């Protein structure tokens, strides 16, 4: 089963602690070596982003940055056997932030990506 994890955060000023970056690299290596990390990427700051919205007023195109306190930071795609496994990997990632970057606040959303098994005919 494939899961997409999207990380949103309010980062303290300044670069992330070297210790955190090291721990993140090691965790990434663990997940890769466990054969479960398919893809990942870091996102440029939201000031580079564009939002295209449709609402009652029609279609609008707005340049970043946006009003929200938390912005999109990165994504990971996991290939795992259960939701809990995806949550465990994402949880390890979040624990590193909690332990190694004071003042950091964020959230990771773990979502299932539909796969062929979701559309398998029954019976």
């Amino acid at each position, binding site marked *: 089963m494939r899961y997409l994890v999207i990380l949103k955060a309010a980062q303290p000023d300044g670069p992330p602690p070297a210790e955190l970056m090291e721990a993140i690299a090691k965790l990434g290596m663990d997940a890769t070596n466990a054969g479960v990390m398919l893809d990942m990427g870091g996102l440029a700051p939201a000031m580079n982003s564009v939002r295209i919205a449709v609402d009652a007023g029609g279609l609008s195109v707005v340049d970043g940055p946006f009003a929200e306190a938390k912005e999109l930071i990165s994504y990971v795609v996991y290939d795992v056997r259960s939701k*809990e496994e995806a949550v*465990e990997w994402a949880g390890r990632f979040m624990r590193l932030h909690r332990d190694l970057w004071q003042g950091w606040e964020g959230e990771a959303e773990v979502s299932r990506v539909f796969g*062929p098994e979701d559309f398998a*005919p029954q019976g």
Partner: protein
Amino acid sequence: MTATDPYRVVEAVWRIEAAHLIAKLTRMVRDVGLAEEIAQDTLVIALEQWPKQGVPTDPGPWLMATAKHRAIDLVRRRIRYGEKLAEIGRALEIAPVDEQDAVDDALDDRVGDDLLRLIFISCHPVLSTEARTALTLRVLGGLSTEEIARAFLVAESTVGQRIVRAKRTLAAKRVPFELPPPDQLAHRLTSVLEVLYLIFNEGYSATAGQDWMRPDLCREALRLGRVLAGLMPEQAEVHGLVALMEIQSSRTWARTDGAGAAILLGDQDRARWDRLLIRRGLAALARAQEIGGILGPFVLQAEIAACHARARSTQETDWSRIAALYLVLSHVWPSPVAELNRAVAVGMAEGAAEGLRIADRVQASRALDQYPQLPAVRADLLAKLGRTAESQQEYARAAALTRNAKEREIFQAKADSCSPVD
């Protein structure tokens, strides 16, 4: 059922940690059967404690420390392992159990080596093929006996016995928990790769039963292949196997229609191929090519799969290159199946008559008398040559030979249709 259901959390952590745990325990007690038993006991302890006390922040080291205590307990108490006591006692002296040790283990670079040793003994040539696949899924995949039984459509007791016998054989033959010596490495690695590909294929083209694919087996084989690639990054054939499995997996979506009927490669909607897996497959193939050396069977098959992956349609496929790759493959790894596939490629590159000549030679060799793809390939080539009646006969033969229900439907439908099939 929520993401915080403690039992499911334990299970998830278990699946992540089981292989490492069993690998390290095997190094300690020098017996994969005993190691697996201790690991299972540890799982039971976690299942009892975590739902009450919460999941430890760092569950891996917790499991390892608990397992080590458990190992000592078990060794002290069990008479039937009495003859091993001296040996194990020595092993435990070398690896004293304390908190610091658990921390050290978490940082231990040899972890990877232990896992690799475990892979090599699970796929050891002293074991039967069935024993190797069952043991591999059990100790490396963390699959339960029941899950393995379901995947292979056999009774749970059968799988249980295979695993028990496999462990006994390893113990009786005194198979050491070591990496193969350099002069045996190639041979032993081949055995590992074959086991993984066998598991993958069992899932990809289920040889029997109602399902065209059993995706769990494919995923597990692919995952273990990726693990192996991380452990042996210098082996081109490992990357070749991973590339092959990634690319074949990329077609999963396109291989069945809405009703579950199978769609063959030539008829698949390529827009439904999984680009992420193709990209990963091509990257793995590129790594294999960087390493270079003599082209092995898995790198060659990955090259062939990559030709399909890169092509936008059957017509735009580089069939000449595929035919040439099959010719090389037939020298590296002589096999009537590869020769039959070459017949298909030559049929596309040079015309059906040329392809049929090769297919007929395969038929004359009698090596594939029970193989449904042989009449199916001949049927396709005959149809292209306008020999409709013979073609239908061959499709009927293919339908009669296959044990896969979905495949039978395809062949039967083609046997029943009057128009030439392309």
